């Protein structure tokens, strides 16, 4: 596709449920990022992949959060035992550069609501 695709667009999870959020970056893009955006706030960095290597996961809030990109293209963000504070929009972004000098291309996000 022409852009970064994320699915599902909306996800409602019961507290304690595990969820998996998918990101299809632009084809050939080397760098992939996950950001979390809480209501009324700016996006906050979660993790960064260069191809299949997870080079930075310093932003993951707890060990309940796990991300992977096994073949260097599609990425999945998994949240185990979801809590109410996990409710947010999860944004994926990609870039063709290993050291992006320009803005990344963001997807439309997955809005996660934990009830």
């Amino acid at each position, binding site marked *: 596709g022409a852009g970064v695709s994320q699915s599902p667009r909306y996800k409602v999870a019961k507290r304690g449920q595990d969820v998996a959020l998918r990101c299809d970056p632009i084809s050939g893009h080397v760098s992939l990022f996950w950001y979390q955006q809480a209501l009324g706030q700016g996006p906050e960095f979660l993790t*960064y992949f260069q191809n299949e290597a997870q080079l930075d996961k310093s932003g993951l809030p707890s060990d309940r959060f796990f991300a992977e990109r096994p073949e260097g293209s599609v990425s999945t963000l998994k949240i185990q035992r979801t809590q109410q504070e996990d409710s947010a929009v999860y944004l994926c972004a990609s870039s063709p550069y290993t050291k992006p000098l*320009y803005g990344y291309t963001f997807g439309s996000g997955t809005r996660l609501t934990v009830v």
Partner: protein
Amino acid sequence: DQQVKQNSPSLSVQEGRISILNCDYTNSMFDYFLWYKKYPAEGPTFLISISSIKDKNEDGRFTVFLNKSAKHLSLHIVPSQPGDSAVYFCAARPGAGNMLTFGGGTRLMVKP
């Protein structure tokens, strides 16, 4: 500790006038700054950027100014159009890293 701050949550401007959005940062390691625009239910869209070696970058109606000594940048939109109504985020990146740190956003409303 917010390293990038946008102190105005909202701004209302008349069509045709100038819109000025401000952003302050605290981390002196930041050397690249970007502005993103976000419409509801969409992801942020890259608008314009500036390197710390410059103090101004212009692209059409959009100009970004950087004052390194004050750790302040601003986005000027001239003339403002109703289609510019959106939330604007400033973001910063250190030279050695790939991670962007975002401000909290400013909602711009351009009235016809």
